[in-house]
């Protein structure tokens, strides 16, 4: 049965690819959504079956066929459902379905063939994403990993006639491929080290071993895999593709570049938790990169004027949180945040999409304002999403974020905690800056209509999200409130169900039980610390919202004056730290110049080909000289014979 979960969206893809052009739009959109709904249904059934099993040994396995086999290198298409992948398939199919439904309305202005193309890509994405999270070995995971990258490429560049969209798609693919080089090498090394690429067998092989004290083969595998994760999950130094990926249609940003694909790197670490646990050096690197990315991206989120780019930097920042959690060994907390983030970030993107839809393509916060009256559903749901991501107590983000911050502190990394807490403050500020600029205050309309992407007529008549868009917003808003309660902390009398549910996925089969006892003992000791940290971060969240209200609602001039006071800092932030420019100068241009001027136009055409042509010329000229000897004249031949004879006789006489 497991195979049907990815297969149903694949079926949707095939139908829309081959028949989509001839189908009416309602059919192609409906079919794609139905495929997702069916996949969600099958997922629920399978997860229910999983829950019926005894905790600790929960898994469902299906091997479809042997894909590649060469000697002892055997790659079967095996799907394995365990607690971790169970959570992931529910997110992918559930939120995926909502976004499909939303898209049927959002993409309504596209002509039928383009509409079908959009949904076929979306379904294909779901197929690969489900393959990724269900894969039982590295290679099948990599198939999903590359497949979602392809769909991301195709969907970012969906409006391919726009050069910036085509550029952004290509950038996403290539930056991801940089990470993939690391991923592939990590997988190769894992195969040589363990003789298998099955996750469970690798974990079992590592189980009895102690974590590597020095940086060895296991650490190198973990590091190489993490390089792959920094590409897919947009972490320093490879995060630069994600802000540009906002060129794609907004539901795509919600599904691929917020809720699912970009979390694949976090998932990768969770899937290989045992491996990473055995590489403590690398875990520290993961934690540091995660924390730095969280604060670095958060900074740029503070000043962006494009509504989607604010959210994009926010996503990078939140992914940093997840890596921070993974890095301090709090795998369940990281995946928990992945789960809650999927709800509120999808909600925020879809809300932004509703705003953009209502404003006929306007994405600039400077030309919004006062929308809460005209777009009540969008406003209220967006507000819930913002409260959730800011970490206001009681909403989803609060639980998962506090779990991460607490575990970071408890693991003995107060500095990383401080960075995380600072990011938390920033998150509240930039999110409520966005809320206040877009939905509160006076309306600000763009006057230079030349730059208005969709003309001015739509501004006159604002309408809230139609039903197909409104319902997903409401459902996601409910999720953004409730999703946190599956991880209700023990200190408030909760069971932290999610952590116990996921734990078997993060431990080697043999040692799972012994660890569980130790965890419980460690948890009980520090509830007081946890409480203090929760209070601190709640205060930070509220303070951030209050500060944003001061800056963007009550005294709107202050932020501009701040920008004037610190012009350099402001320019640095607005220009995204000049990172794209630095990469271009450091890597892109030198490689182009090397290839063009040195390799092609000197080495290839002058040196190598020059040598070849030189040999040709020499052969030709030698032939030319030798030819003169063959004159056909008897006297010349006779002369040369005579000359030769004289020389030979002379040689023997005088030697």
């Amino acid at each position: 049965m497991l195979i049907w979960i990815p297969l149903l969206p694949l079926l949707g893809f095939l139908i829309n690819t081959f028949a989509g052009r001839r189908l009416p739009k309602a059919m192609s959109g409906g079919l794609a959504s139905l495929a997702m709904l069916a996949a969600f249904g099958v997922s629920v059934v399978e997860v229910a079956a999983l829950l019926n099993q005894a905790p600790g040994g929960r898994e469902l396995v299906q091997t479809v066929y042997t894909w590649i086999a060469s000697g002892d290198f055997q790659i079967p298409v095996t799907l394995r459902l365990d607690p971790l992948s169970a959570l992931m398939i529910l997110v992918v199919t559930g939120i995926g379905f909502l976004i499909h439904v939303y898209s049927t309305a959002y993409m309504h202005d596209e002509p039928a063939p383009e509409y079908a193309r959009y949904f076929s890509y979306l379904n294909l994405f779901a197929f690969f994403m489900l393959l990724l999270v269900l894969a039982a070995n590295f290679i099948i995971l990599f198939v999903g990993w590359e497949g979602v990258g392809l769909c991301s490429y195709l969907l970012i560049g969906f409006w391919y006639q726009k050069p910036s969209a085509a550029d952004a798609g290509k950038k996403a693919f290539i930056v991801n491929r940089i990470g993939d080089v690391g991923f592939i090498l990590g997988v190769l090394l894992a195969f040589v080290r363990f003789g298998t690429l099955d996750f469970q067998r690798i974990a079992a092989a590592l189980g009895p071993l102690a974590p590597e004290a020095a940086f060895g083969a296991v650490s190198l595998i973990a590091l190489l895999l993490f390089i792959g994760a920094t590409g897919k999950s947009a972490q320093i130094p490879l995060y630069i593709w994600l802000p540009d990926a906002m060129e794609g249609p907004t539901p795509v940003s919600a599904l691929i570049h917020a809720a699912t694909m970009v979390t694949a790197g976090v998932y990768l670490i969770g899937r290989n938790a045992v491996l990473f646990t055995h590489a403590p050096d690398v875990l520290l690197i993961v934690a540091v990169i995660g924390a730095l990315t969280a604060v670095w991206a958060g900074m740029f989120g503070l000043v962006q004027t494009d509504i989607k780019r604010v959210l994009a930097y926010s996503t990078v920042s939140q992914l940093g949180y997840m890596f921070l959690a993974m890095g301090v060994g709090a795998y369940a907390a990281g995946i928990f945040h992945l789960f809650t983030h999927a709800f509120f970030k999808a909600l925020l993107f879809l809300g932004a999409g509703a705003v953009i839809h209502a404003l006929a393509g306007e994405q600039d916060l400077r030309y919004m304002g006062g929308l809460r009256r005209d777009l009540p559903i969008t406003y209220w749901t967006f507000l819930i999403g913002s409260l959730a991501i800011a970490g206001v107590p009681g909403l989803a983000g609060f639980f998962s974020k506090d779990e991460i911050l607490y575990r970071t502190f408890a693991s003995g990394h107060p500095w990383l905690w401080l960075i995380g807490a600072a990011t938390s403050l920033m998150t509240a500020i930039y999110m409520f800056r966005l809320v206040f600029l877009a939905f509160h205050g006076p309306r600000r309309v763009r006057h230079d209509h030349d730059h208005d992407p969709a003309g001015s007529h739509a501004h006159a008549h604002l309408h809230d999200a139609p039903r197909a868009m409104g319902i997903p917003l409401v459902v996601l808003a409910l999720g953004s409130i409730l999703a946190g309660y599956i991880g209700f902390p023990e200190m408030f009398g909760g069971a932290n169900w999610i952590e116990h549910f996921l734990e078997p996925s993060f431990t080697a089969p043999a040692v799972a039980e012994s660890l569980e006892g130790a965890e419980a003992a460690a948890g009980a000791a520090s509830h007081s610390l946890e409480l203090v940290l929760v209070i601190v971060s709640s205060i930070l969240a509220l303070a951030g919202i209050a500060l944003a209200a001061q800056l963007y609602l009550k005294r709107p001039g202050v932020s501009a004056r701040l920008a004037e006071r610190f012009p350099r800092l402001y320019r640095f932030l607005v220009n995204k730290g000049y990172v794209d420019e630095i990469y271009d100068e450091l890597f892109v241009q030198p490689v182009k110049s090397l290839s063009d001027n040195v390799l092609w136009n000197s080495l290839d055409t002058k040196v190598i080909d020059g040598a070849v042509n030189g040999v040709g010329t020499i052969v030709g000229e030698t032939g030319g000289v030798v030819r003169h000897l063959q004159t056909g004249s008897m006297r010349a031949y006779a002369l040369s014979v005579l000359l030769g004879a004289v020389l030979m006789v002379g040689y023997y006489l005088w030697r």
Partner: protein
Amino acid sequence: MLLTFLVLAPIAGAAIIACTSGRREALIRRTALAVSVVEFGLTLLLWTRFDGTSAEFQFIERRAWIPAFGVDYFIGVDGISLFLVVLTGFLTPLALLSSWESVHDRVKEFSLFVLALESAMVGVFISLDLFLFYIFWDAMLIPMYFLIGIWGYDRRVYAAIKFILYTMGGSVLMLVAILTLAYYHGAVTGMPSFDLLKLYALPLPGWLQFWGFLAFTMAFAIKVPLFPFHTWLPDAHVEAPTAGSVILAGVLLKMGTYGLVRFAFPLFPDAALYFAPYLAGLAVIGIVYGALVAMVQPDLKKLVAYSSVSHLGFVALGISAMNVQGVQGAVYQMLNHGVSTGALFLIVGMLSDRRHTRLIAQFGGLKKVLPKLTTAFLIITLASIGLPGLNGFVGELLILVGAFRWDPRYAAVAATGVLLSAVYMLWMFQRVNYGPVTNEENAHLPDLTLRERWALWPAVAMCIFMGVAPMVFLKPMEPSVTRLVEQVHRNQGQQVRILPR
């Protein structure tokens, strides 16, 4: 008799065409196509009759030819050559279809040369006698020379002569080595022989292995082409007509890597293992170098040509690793490259038929105008950059696994090829197909014709099929590959002095 029939069928077709009046072009085209399709059917028949569980040569035919010198007509296929024969059968009809509208001049001679070339190519893959092999090897050059020199583009004569001199330069060395081998067999056993299987079994002294391997490998390295013997390739491709490029990239380049697998490595196993790191060094340089140079090409055909240098570097790396994954990946990648690069040349040919230019800068926004062509183009592009689910990935993965086991350093450099191929292919794809239509001449181009679809869709379908179900090919191939690997490693442990004193 099936194998002999496979060699003779295209030549027989060529003979029929030779007797037809040159003015009946339509008839000639159809006859040539029919012959090549029948030939493809025969190669499939060969495949179905092939015993995939055996490592031995099958369909063996042997007749004494020049008994005094130990020359036999000795042919057969194993799991390695089988698929290269099928590939030849698969690509030739596509190449003929591609020239349907682009070749108007001397259709009779054109069709005749293509069919003759097919016979020679099949002959190379099935020869088990070195003399016979050499005859076919050189026989290939003649039709290819004319295909480039007569039906090529502006600098076709220069390119044709460069092609022939380069390859002849290599072949001469190989001929000397072949004769030496046969003579050495005579010196040891009292009877000279060109029989490959007998020569496999003959223990060779270090000096002979050293020079023999170098001579053979020189000939094959030029053909592959390995860096730095590749500069004939861009010229030959750019000037060749589409059909010529398809066959050149699709089949002819594999002669080099096939030669390494069939002759250079098993004949001179100790020298091969001694030289393997150097060969792998050239291979990985080729992977990176070909990719970087491909990146900056303004001409589509040159870009694809340099990308071939990069892809064939992967193949040579897999062979150098000389373990089951490496060699199996290499042979699979030969097939992949044949299909996907053959298809790329078909596409470039279709664009050039429409616009009479191959400069990337002349295109842009074609997706809007040519949606079907662009879809095929996209799939082939993705196959070429090794996207999982398409054929290229399987080959590259196996090669990397093999290379990594052998020496991780080469695999690490080669893995960057995975990144670079995405850079040059996607950048090219974007400049040709995305963005607005900037050039008015591109605005009203016709999409794929029925004939073009018949040329292109089979290749696209193969890219998907070979990516999803590689075991169809890998399984019957494995016994032969395993035997080869064991054969090359047979002397390991015994000290055979390779360096000449």
